[in-house]
């Protein structure tokens, strides 16, 4: 959950929504805008490299600093009955002694040569884990984001246009309530009602145990997790869209259009929505940390075999060989998301003088 703490630190898209009447955006030529966007993206890409290095260093340093003994993962249940010589043998076998900087260096070498290590929580090579689980997470998260965006834009536009109406009050109240509810509570309620109580939908997993993955199976098993994730993403998007529509509706351009006699659907489609949708879409990139956290919780509760669940499991169990690539990956994803967001905002509204 990113927090916006004051209006003057809103990212450019929100500034756009906030300022109703300003100079003509068409005065800045497309070419310059294009160059600015490319420059911004390039600078962000360059900054990603030290960030990646630092994040991976951080993971390994933290691993070394933790009081955790990686032997618990390797020995599992037999940890309680293993003798000192057995532990010594396993330590030697897995190379668990040695300085963390060396481990970090070796890890990067291994990654570049294609071997990302062995995950102790999943008991498989890390690359297998990532390749197998990524489609599940991507599929469900992108679908949830799509649904949430569509619903948020539609309902946000409608409630923004009819501010104060019954629909507006109900939707806003519900959105505020949902924003206050952690995703795992939403997931628990959905499971209790639909899966356990009514028995309409399966409670966990991505397939019926014993069967292979089928499209129909994935569909039925995916309804509840996707719904939970969508519900957790909607509130912020809806209320931002609504605020943008409200401000657009009060802008001079729209006032002028009304004065010219344009009203209703044409006004919404032609004048209000373009100004409010684009900034909202541009801000989607900043919702990625939320999406990652929400996906992690929803996948954990529903047993959906995705990468976010693996990330949480590896964090809880301190399985650093899996945690390192996933943490670096999610940091990169978030940085890419905010870079694309800011680039889109610059492209849409060149009044924003964002350079880097």
């Amino acid at each position: 959950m990113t927090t916006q703490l004051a209006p003057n630190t809103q990212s450019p898209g929100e500034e756009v929504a906030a300022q109703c009447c300003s100079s003509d955006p068409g005065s800045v030529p497309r070419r310059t805008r294009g160059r600015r966007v490319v420059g911004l993206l390039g600078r962000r890409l360059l900054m990603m490299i030290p960030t990646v290095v630092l994040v991976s260093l951080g993971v390994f340093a933290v691993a070394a600093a933790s009081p955790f003994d990686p032997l618990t993962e390797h020995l599992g249940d037999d940890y309680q009955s293993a003798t000192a010589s057995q532990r010594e043998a396993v330590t030697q076998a897995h190379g668990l002694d040695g300085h963390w900087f060396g481990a970090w260096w070796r890890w990067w070498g291994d990654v570049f040569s294609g071997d990302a290590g062995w995950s102790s929580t999943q008991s498989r090579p890390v690359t297998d884990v990532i390749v197998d689980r990524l489609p599940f997470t991507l599929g469900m998260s992108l679908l949830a984001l799509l649904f949430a965006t569509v619903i948020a834009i539609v309902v946000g536009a409608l409630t923004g246009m009819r501010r104060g109406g019954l629909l507006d009050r109900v939707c806003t109240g519900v959105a505020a309530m949902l924003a206050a509810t952690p995703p795992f509570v939403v997931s628990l309620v959905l499971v209790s009602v639909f899966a356990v109580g009514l028995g309409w939908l399966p409670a966990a997993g991505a397939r019926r145990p014993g069967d292979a993955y089928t499209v129909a199976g994935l569909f039925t098993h995916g309804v509840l997790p996707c719904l939970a994730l969508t519900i957790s993403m909607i509130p912020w998007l809806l209320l931002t869209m609504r605020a943008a529509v409200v401000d657009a509706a009060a802008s001079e351009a729209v006032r002028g259009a009304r004065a010219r006699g344009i009203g209703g659907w044409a006004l919404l489609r032609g004048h209000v929505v373009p100004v409010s949708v684009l900034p909202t879409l541009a801000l989607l990139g900043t919702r990625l940390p939320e999406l990652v956290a929400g996906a992690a919780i929803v996948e954990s509760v529903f047993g959906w075999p995705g990468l976010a669940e693996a990330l949480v499991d590896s964090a809880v169990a301190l399985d650093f060989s899996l945690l390192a690539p996933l943490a670096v990956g999610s940091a990169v994803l978030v940085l890419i998301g905010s870079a694309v967001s800011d680039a889109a905002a610059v492209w849409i509204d060149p009044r924003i003088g964002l350079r880097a």
Partner: protein
Amino acid sequence: MTATIGAAGGTGAAFGRAGRLLPWAVLVVVAAVALGWPMLAGEQAADFGRALRAPGAGTLLGTDHSGYDLGVRTAEGLRISLLIALACAVLATVLGVVVGVASVTAGGWVDAVVMRVVDGVNALPHLVVGVVIAAMWRGEPVAIIASIALTHWPAVARVVRAELLEARTAGWVEAARLAGASRTFIATRHLGPAVGGQVLVAMTVLLPHAVWHETTLSFLGVGLSPDEASLGTLLGQARGDVLTGAWWTLVVPGAALMVTALACAAAASSLRRASAPPAGEVWR
């Protein structure tokens, strides 16, 4: 979350003047219940023979998995969760203020580097970092507080820095400097209050966020010890108890969590509306 409620106009728009005070009143009631109910109820003992009784005869809200009175247990959990959240909010705010002020005062390339670092820390997924830190020192409240504070101070630093930059170049500060005021005077009388309002808002916003994080961490099993009372551990245990039909173990802590989070967010948004100019007005 505050942006959402703020954008909605806050409870003020919905209920008028009394509505603006509503979230504060709710917060006061919640704090009173969290502190007072366990004190009134006295020492609680686990008694598995009385476990999972429905609300009604004997107990107001039923009993939980270990036989504690669910109302008292939820109040205790609320107290611990709120205390931890308060500690996190204060710590994150202090860190953010220190970093923000230092960055602005140093200026130049130090400022740029610090802002890059802040952005970098902000980019890490809060939940994952929080889970890792909390998992390393399991069950220690200090680790939980640290894990939440260390992932949320960047937002405060950004706000403080922006406010300070703006206030420093504001007209009235220029005027005061020209009139011969000392740097300390300007700092305490002009810059301080300008930043202070936003800092207070930041702290209030962080509160429900910290509660959210703590409950999620406990739910995932890396928060407080499972035999301690906290909203997260109660909800985590409720997950299994609901399957045996004990719906009250989910409803009572869940409602407490939502009411607290909503009230905090609404209070923060009303604070923000009071301290910041509304969008669209020109008064810089």
